[in-house]
């Protein structure tokens, strides 16, 4: 450990978890179940990233608070090119302002029979509503606009599962556009991180992209930082003052 960094600790984070709001996620992905599973897996931080929506974040956060787990609110936003980008936000105001901006660019009505139901719940796992937007759809924003939107609300923009064949920036766009200000890349198989062309200047995280309870924490990222705050995580991504990201 570098001198003066004795106050840096290691925290385990799974930054990409879906809830029952995502039509493709298991209905068992309720706030209480997610937090219980995260606790069981020894996670310190979880990110809630449903498709193009954040409506279940408050319910997860209320449960996690009691368990001493930090929840970061986010969305997995789909660009016009059908690239998935994680937007993570530091507080509820920024998160829901970003959500409103995403909703304004998201067309279509969900078909529950075909795509699954989109359940909005409260902190007691009780159903509040069914979201009727086509959350599985693509927004009308180019990937540059998605990243700008995330940054406009002080968020962290991470290209999701870049090593997958579907809905990833590398599969859909061939390579990362020059100068696109992504804060990090998410990789599903960390052993491949050095084998992906044109990504050596990026910081990588890995996460579960859990749609089922069992998958929570299956992959996680270690943040070496002073304390668990959103800004500390941001500093980690930029390796400020000895902070590090380990996958």
């Amino acid at each position: 450990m570098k001198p003066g960094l004795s106050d840096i600790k290691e925290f385990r984070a799974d930054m990409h978890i879906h809830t029952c709001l995502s039509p493709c996620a298991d209905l068992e992905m309720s706030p209480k179940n997610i937090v219980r599973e995260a606790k069981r897996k020894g996670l310190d931080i979880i990110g809630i990233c449903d498709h193009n929506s954040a409506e279940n974040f408050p319910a997860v956060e209320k449960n996690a608070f009691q368990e001493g787990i930090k929840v970061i609110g986010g969305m997995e936003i789909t660009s016009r090119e059908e690239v998935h980008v994680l937007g993570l936000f530091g507080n509820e105001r920024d998160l829901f302002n970003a959500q409103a901006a995403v909703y304004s660019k998201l067309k279509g009505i969900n078909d529950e029979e075909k795509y699954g139901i989109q359940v909005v719940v409260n902190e007691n796992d009780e159903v509040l509503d069914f979201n009727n937007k086509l959350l599985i759809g693509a927004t009308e924003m180019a990937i540059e606009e998605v990243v700008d939107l995330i940054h406009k609300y002080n968020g962290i923009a991470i290209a999701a599962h870049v090593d997958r064949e579907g809905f990833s920036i590398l599969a859909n766009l061939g390579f990362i556009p020059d100068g696109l200000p992504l804060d990090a890349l998410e990789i599903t198989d960390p052993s491949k991180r050095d084998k992906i062309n044109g990504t050596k200047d990026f910081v990588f995280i890995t996460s579960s992209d859990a749609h089922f309870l069992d998958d929570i924490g299956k992959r996680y990222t270690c943040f070496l930082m002073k304390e668990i705050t959103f800004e500390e995580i941001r500093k980690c991504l930029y390796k400020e003052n000895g902070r590090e990201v380990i996958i």
Partner: protein
Amino acid sequence: MKIRDIVKILDLQVISGDDLLEKEVTGGYTGDLLSDVLAHARKGNIWITSQIHQNIIAVASSKELSGIIIVNLRKPEEETLKRAEEEKIPVISSSLLAFEITGKLYETGIK
């Protein structure tokens, strides 16, 4: 067959590269995943796609494709057209869907 012939036969609209229509078309490739096009398209191919992002120009340029046909009247981004001029890639628009335009190109003898 030259791009000019294709534009004429199928009544397409040239959005960029009016002066580049003498390029010879050696075949075609249809796809929206740029990684797939990078892996499989061949030099001289005309590329049929619904993607409008600027990366399509870099892909067409590096694979030495003869041109890009954007389907379903989707409008390319400004940056895409700027790069198309720089890289000298003709960009053509069609109101047809990818399936239809591919079929018509095949009928003209482009395979």
